């Protein structure tokens, strides 16, 4: 935790410097009042689909290509053009090249966490963990997931509908990655979690389906009888906690009974052709489920790309220490290329893209130099939190906007460095939640939900 304090001070120093920069800008005649002016809270986004790319995708081999860098940096892949002039991407995302112009990109995201769990927690909450620890422990001292904060400050009105849903895995690296639950906000704000594969033919929710010996009618009978018995203890029944229990019981029953919720989870309602277009993979059908949930009103949907970081050998996430180019070309990029563009098209076709912010990001990028680590197989890239790219589309974002840039090898931010704290502030801001909103931790300390500044330039 001591490191936490160093971080704390360091960030404070950093801002003092940043403050001077702002002062200079004013001095040079840039519009200071505008810089200092209140950023009006956007309210365009009603939903967020957070596509979390566990393992840490290579920024250089995807969206921030460096074709002019020496081969040991630029890697094997060639850039291709997108529909936005001057914006390129890897040749292995051909379908993506047709939708990339709808995305805004932040190419200068950076932090200092080199381990998956610490960096993952940072990417899932927008708060730097106290230590960079490979097995960062998930305690109530850590911050809540984005979806939990959003459930608290911009909940869904419909009682049958959860405000925040996450699936299809709990992400872990040895131990469960912190930042996937409500932490000190309280269990009531935990995202509704589904640990099952939406691409499986038997996909359904046990919570939402009753066993055959307990049909809804029998449950209704039981509830009616319970109501009679409870009513005889009127004073107990009116206590605040009793009302809380009743509220959640009613919600649970509403969810069991509501065709809307069942419907949202029922992927068989989708045309086979569209399901094919998303890809009949866990990721593909998860993104389709995300769209269905957003369509039914869910506020914040988190889709985890993989349950494990992967190792470059055909399973799991983006952690391509070995076999980087083959694994990207054969597996990770094709799956992405199949699914994400379909999601964007589908949202757009239904008029949902304007009100849905889609975020695509991992916990860090990957080393500019290929094979820098002799203990791996010389075709890998390692962890690189010093600079990576985050993509956003919809929700009022300016299509084609590029914020920040990396240096000539993708090693460090060259302009407009952005921290995950700023990404968090941007998410909340886009949803109309003031990033300075305070929450109280278990010790009663007031803490802002985001410690950064929203990148308002990205929004039109």
């Amino acid at each position, binding site marked *: *935790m001591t490191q936490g304090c160093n971080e704390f001070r360091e960030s404070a120093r950093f801002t003092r410097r940043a403050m001077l920069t702002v002062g200079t800008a004013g001095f040079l005649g840039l519009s200071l009042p505008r810089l200092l002016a209140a950023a009006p809270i956007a309210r365009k986004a009603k939903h967020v689909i957070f596509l979390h790319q566990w393992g840490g995708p290579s920024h250089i081999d995807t969206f921030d290509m460096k074709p002019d860098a020496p081969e040991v940096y630029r890697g094997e892949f060639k850039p291709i053009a997108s529909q936005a002039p001057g914006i390129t991407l890897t040749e292995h995302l051909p379908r993506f090249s047709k939708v990339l112009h709808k995305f805004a990109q932040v190419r200068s995201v950076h932090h200092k966490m080199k381990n998956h769990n610490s960096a993952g927690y940072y990417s899932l909450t927008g708060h730097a963990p106290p230590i960079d620890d*490979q097995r960062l422990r998930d305690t109530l001292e850590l911050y809540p997931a984005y979806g939990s904060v959003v459930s608290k400050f911009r909940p869904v009105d419909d009682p049958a509908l959860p405000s925040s849903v996450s699936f299809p895995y709990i992400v872990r690296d040895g131990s469960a990655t912190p930042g996937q639950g409500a932490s000190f906000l309280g269990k009531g704000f935990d995202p509704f979690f589904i640990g099952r594969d939406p691409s499986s033919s038997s996909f359904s929710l046990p919570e939402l389906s009753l066993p055959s010996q307990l049909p809804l009618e029998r449950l209704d009978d039981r509830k009616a009888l*319970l109501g009679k018995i409870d009513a005889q203890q009127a004073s107990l029944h009116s*206590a605040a906690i009793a009302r809380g229990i009743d509220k959640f019981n009613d919600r649970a029953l509403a969810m069991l009974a509501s065709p809307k919720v069942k419907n949202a989870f029922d992927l068989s309602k989708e045309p086979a052709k569209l399901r094919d277009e998303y890809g009949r993979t866990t990721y593909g059908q998860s993104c389709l489920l995300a769209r269905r949930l957003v369509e039914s009103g869910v506020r914040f949907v988190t889709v985890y790309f993989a349950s494990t970081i992967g190792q470059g050998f055909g399973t799991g996430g983006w952690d391509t220490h070995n076999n980087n180019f083959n694994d990207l070309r054969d597996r990770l990029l094709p799956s992405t290329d199949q699914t994400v563009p379909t999601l964007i098209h589908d949202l757009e076709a239904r008029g949902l893209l304007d009100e849905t912010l889609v975020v695509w990001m991992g916990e860090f990028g990957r080393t500019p130099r290929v094979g820098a680590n002799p203990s791996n197989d010389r075709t890998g890239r390692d962890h690189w939190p010093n600079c990576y790219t985050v993509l956003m589309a919809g929700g009022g974002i300016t299509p084609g906007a590029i914020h920040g840039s990396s240096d000539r090898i993708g090693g460090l931010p060259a302009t407009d460095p952005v921290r995950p704290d700023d990404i968090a502030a941007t998410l909340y801001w886009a949803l109309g939640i003031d990033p300075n909103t305070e929450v109280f931790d278990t010790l009663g300390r007031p803490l802002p939900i985001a*410690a950064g*500044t929203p990148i308002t330039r990205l929004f039109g």
Partner: protein
Amino acid sequence: MLISPRTSVARIVAALLCWFGCVSSFARVQAAPALKTVRIEPSNIKLEGAADHRQLVVTAVYVDGSVRDITREAKYFSIDACFHTTGFGVISAVADKVGSIYVMFGDKRFEVPVESRRASEWTPPGYRRDVVALLSKAGCNMGTCHGNINGKGGLRLSLRGDDPSADFLALTRDSFGRRINLTNAGASLLIAKPTGKIEHEGGVRFGVHSPEAAILLNWIMYGAKDDEATTPRLTRLRVYPERQLNAAPGLTQQLSVTAEFSDHTVRDVTTLASFDVDDPIKVSVSAGGLVSRKSAGETTVSVRYLNGRAISRLAFLHDRAGFVARSVPNDNSIDAAVFAKLNALKVTPSEPATDAVFLRRAHLDSIGVLPTPEETRAFLSDDDPHKRAKLIDRLVVRPEFADFWALKWADLLRNEEKTMGDKGAWIFQRWLRDQMSADVPLDEFARQIVSAQGSTHRNPPASFYRTNQDPQTAAESVGQVFLGVRVQCARCHNHPYDVWTQDDYYGMSAHFANLSRKILDETKRDRFDKHEINGDVIIHLKGRPGMVQPRSGAMMDPKPLGAKSSWKRDDPNALDDLARWLTRDNPQFARNMANRIWFHLVGRGVVEPVDDFRDSNPPSNPELLDALTSEFVRNGMRLKPLVAFIMKSRTYALGSDTNDSNADDESNFSHAQIKLHPAEVLLDAVSLGLERPESFSNAPRFARATQLSGIQSGSSFLKTFGKPDRLLTCECERSDATTLAQAFEMLNGPSIRSKIQADDNRIGRLIARGASDDAILDELVTALLSRSPTASERADLLAHVRKSSDRRRGWEDVAWVLLNTKEFLLRH
């Protein structure tokens, strides 16, 4: 004398308000007691210099002993022009004079002597005494504004004005000094922004013509200097009144705040002080120190001025004309304290709980186990007038008592398998249980833990240092567990609303700095996991204790929190010293323990949260805490006698049904708390009630959930109902929140379903025995709700069973219903 338009408007408004107030209060309390006298604070006034002023606080004292703040209702005047009075009771001087002002209330007039000196000598406002305070008062340095670690809009101030020197640089130097305009002070950003002349994200903090703006303007006009060298230090901050119960219909209280400085000057700083309230929705405090509460109730106002703090504890009473005070019992010090407070607040306590409710509550609160149907029948049919006391004496010696209280300690001392190892967790659990069973004095218990060294397997209390691995965490845990204070804030900065400084924090941490660990037989499953330890750990000392305070760079000797001096560092073992200091004649240790035991039985601490003792979070009933503490100390700091003492009080035995006067009482113990049972207790109650033990992995067969060592065994039920992960040293980690997941768990979760459906559960055995429907019902209700069914319950439940196509399934429905009643789920 000039009167600005603003003042006259304010006066008219005040007059109107006063008039309305008088009319309405006249209508409501015609039978108000007669006025006896009026108390005026201060009783004489000395004014020094042109800017000096005094806030009067005027209190009406009635013949029945009740009091009420009338500062805004009284009228103030001066018969000559030397003194100036406002309708709000603020007195200032225009010229030097020894004279008086008059306070009028109703038809009575009171004289207050005033002496003014050097009334024509004006000193400009100073940075340290005025500007720094103002930045806090206007909220500029709050965490949401410029006090944020990133600042706001380019300006970053220290959180709540903790570092005036850094703030001075930020205000006068940063951004090329453009915040201050010495040649045209009024054009300074520092004034233009908060007054709204230039767009300001934080809005208008004060008006252009406000006293705040005047302070800033004058400070800048006089050169915007830091006057640290010439300004006397604040030595004491006082608020008046420190404690007052205002009779109805009063819902306001004027505060006055005075600061004493190292040069022995005293200054009224009411308008410069910042006020924080415990419930900002119900209570507000104006810039001038007028506390207003929306409805009757209690309020603690924390006052800050520079580095000084003071608190005012206020209550505004309901108008309960027919209130009859209960006689205050003198045979039990808990009841004496509780009932006296309730009388003062005009709150009538609930009626005592019935025998059945008491039996159930006593069992679940003290041993975490439901009474069996046999125990219930025996107790309810017993006509011994002392049967409750005898029950309590039986409960505290039962083996389950030790299990249950060991569980509470296992939470706080973080007994979980990853760090303790499976074996270590059982060893530590058994040690905790043995301590509880033997009723080892808690000071001895704490001493064993804090001074523990050696093998954690052979000397289990040393496990404390197995989980608390770095000196800071150990210091925080010892502070939180054994003293009930939270010092975590002081790790990075001086605590913003408590006394703890970084020196205190690192002085405390220094005790643990030379603790060293050697791990034997490590068989961890995950070599990358620093938190996993699966062998034995030898705790030993290496070198000398001492710790560097990171901000000052100074080497701190071990010094306990709040102690006057530090230990000598040449003694390598500071832990024994700390343990001795902690447990010998340390009033805070005993207060904390007594408060925690009360919390576990009653559901709420006298100080709440229990680990947050600080001046600004006072006990809701100080006499009650004193009573508990002295009883605890009198019995040699043992757990069982205090548990029995609390449970034998009338207060503990009150019912949970509230009346009109105590329905909204949360902190005065006028009724029993209704809350969700702890996860383990609830699961055990289901198991015992249905006679279907839960089977836990890695635990003996038929173990109850309250007997488990760590956190890893057990189904999702325990997690869902709030069993903590034991990663924090905080009672707060155990969640008592209701959630959607709990609803699904109770509706159709595997734990509930399997127990209801099991063939050989209580239902199955009763049916197999050929019991009649009436007999089954009696047995089920008695087993689950600890009472007999009422006539209408019998009718409803039997009707359901009889109309069911399958008798067994009908009974399953009944069992489900009983498990889901609030009566079963909730402690009441």
